[in-house]
């Protein structure tokens, strides 16, 4: 269970390093965020939600059946747009209205 940080998109703001509940993300010598302990990731996606630059993507490890889709979220007003890119490049979007309760 882990994340991938795109170095080109990362601006080094450090918000992900602050918010990770396991303190697993650190800034490297060039000031960009990197995942120091990928095997210790819980998969809570706090960092994905915190990143305003869409630099962090979440994926499922192969050991739990992952096939390489990547997920990130864009926030606009009270909506969260979850974007999932499958290995063949297809992008699927699910929109969550944060002001609306779960149906279940």
């Amino acid at each position, binding site marked *: 269970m882990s994340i991938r940080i795109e170095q080109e998109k990362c601006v080094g703001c450090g918000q992900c390093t602050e*918010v990770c509940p396991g303190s697993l993300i650190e800034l490297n010598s060039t000031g960009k965020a990197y995942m120091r302990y990928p*095997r*210790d*990731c*819980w998969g809570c996606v706090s960092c994905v939600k915190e990143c305003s630059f869409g630099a962090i993507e979440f994926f*499922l*490890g192969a050991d739990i059946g992952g096939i390489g889709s990547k997920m990130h979220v864009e926030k606009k007003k009270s909506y969260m747009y979850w974007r999932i890119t499958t290995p063949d490049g297809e992008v699927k979007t699910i929109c969550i209205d944060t002001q*609306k309760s*779960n149906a279940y």
Partner: protein
Amino acid sequence: MKMKEPQLIHTDVLIIGGGTAGCYAALTLSSRSSLSVVIAEKANIRRSGCLAAGVNALNAYITKGHTPRFYADYVKKDADGIVRDDLVISMSEGLNRVTAVLEQLGLVILKDDKGEYVARGPRNIKINGENIKPLLAGAVEKASHVRILNHVTITDYIVRDNRILGAFGFSMRDGTVFEIRARTVLCAAGGAAGLYRPNHPGFSRHKMWYSPFNTGAGYAMGIRAGAEMTTFEMRFIALRCKDTIAPTGTIAQGVGARQINAAGEVYEQKYGLTTSQRVYGTVKENQDGRGPCYLQTEGITEKQDEELMKAYLNMAPSQTLKWIEAGVGPSRQNVEIEGTEPYIVGGHTASGYWVDTSRETTIHNLYAAGDVAGGCPQKYVTGALVEGEIAAQAIISRIEHEDNVELLTAEEETQLLRQKAAEYTERVSDTDSLFTVEQLEEAMQSVMDTYAGGIASQYRYNEKQLELAERRIRQIETLSDTVTVRDWHELMLLYELCERLTVCRVLIAHLQARKETRWHSFAENLDYPQKDEAWLKYVNSRMKDGSIHIIFRPLVKEGERYEHTN
């Protein structure tokens, strides 16, 4: 390695852990008193603790037409009698009060046309809980006379004459060593994950139900300081969606899905519907060759399918990702389920500190709330908040009514801080030790898995196996003394390993002590496979001079209260 000037802090109240219970206690102390509060949190309170990813519903609520007693009866039945009625009822009475506060803080709760909360089941209500932790934390950040120390890990209590005087810790970011002296301490450090080998021991080893960052620090510090603990033998094993370890309740309650085996037979009625029986049934079906087991979702509507995808994004996004990767959602494919590795967690079962009704532990002025506090299962989020509130209120009246007895001189304080800083830095070295934290953690998990009822042994054990487990865990404990680390982050990981080993020892002693099988899977003793009414009592323990002593206590039944007498 960097090391800053050690810091000595004085405060009225120290809260260890800024998770669910800790944050709510801080809010209560801030609004009802002028006491100074320090929260020491090993991550950042914004997303730390169990609520990091969000939560799918509030699962402890007194819905319309029901009473706190209705909730308490459910809790008692689920734990087959081994609960503290005084704790469960006082928790139940506060559930709706704290829910109202959550709504004021901005939590979205579904309401009907009349403005009443919509029930999801008899004891829970529907919410959007994705941002529940940032909401709580945001309020704490704004609260007056509350100081938050993020990224500070607490390692030991300071105790004299069975009275708490504060705690030691360090910043895993800059190496500042802290001695936090406090008139009262609230332990809200959470339960213990990572004791047993997890479902996926490789790359996704931390894809587990409970927070892998809750490592039993709260229990371990109390155990070493001689606090009495209760019911560690009631382990918690969650029934989860296979691989993603995402919740099953949302599907089971949301769309009424039943548990079925590979042949499509509904098996849940066969074994019973308590939390442990639901796990046990799934284990048995697999053992008897009728696995894999599923939640029967095939045939639900497209709309239901879509709503489940959204609900999971708000609390366990990996499950939604899994469905999308599979190319078929739950309406076209049943959801495979499995049991997790066992955890020790007082918010779900009754394991934890032995407390009185004010949530004070057997150490004077040390309180416990949330997953560290025993005797009161099925707290979930709201129950943990209530316990934070109860403990905070008790702390306010304790400080008001008790003179401050100073047991340490300024010189002693400085001396202690210097000693602790030396103790920390002693473990840091540029030369690698033969054994590492990771190796010993794997060794511990392997021992617990094989000999103390892990996944590999279908959660079962016998006395011979427990003896072996005890011996091996002690051996690993000895080896842990030789481990060196390279930086402050690794030092935190070393402390976490030692905390888990301490919890394992107490857990094994409790499993050995309860000579019956009251809860299938949670405590499945093959030498004593039956339930025995003689065991309607609590198994408690206390560590003295490094040895664990078992104490049996009579049940605190409906209408009774337990208060400390010493």
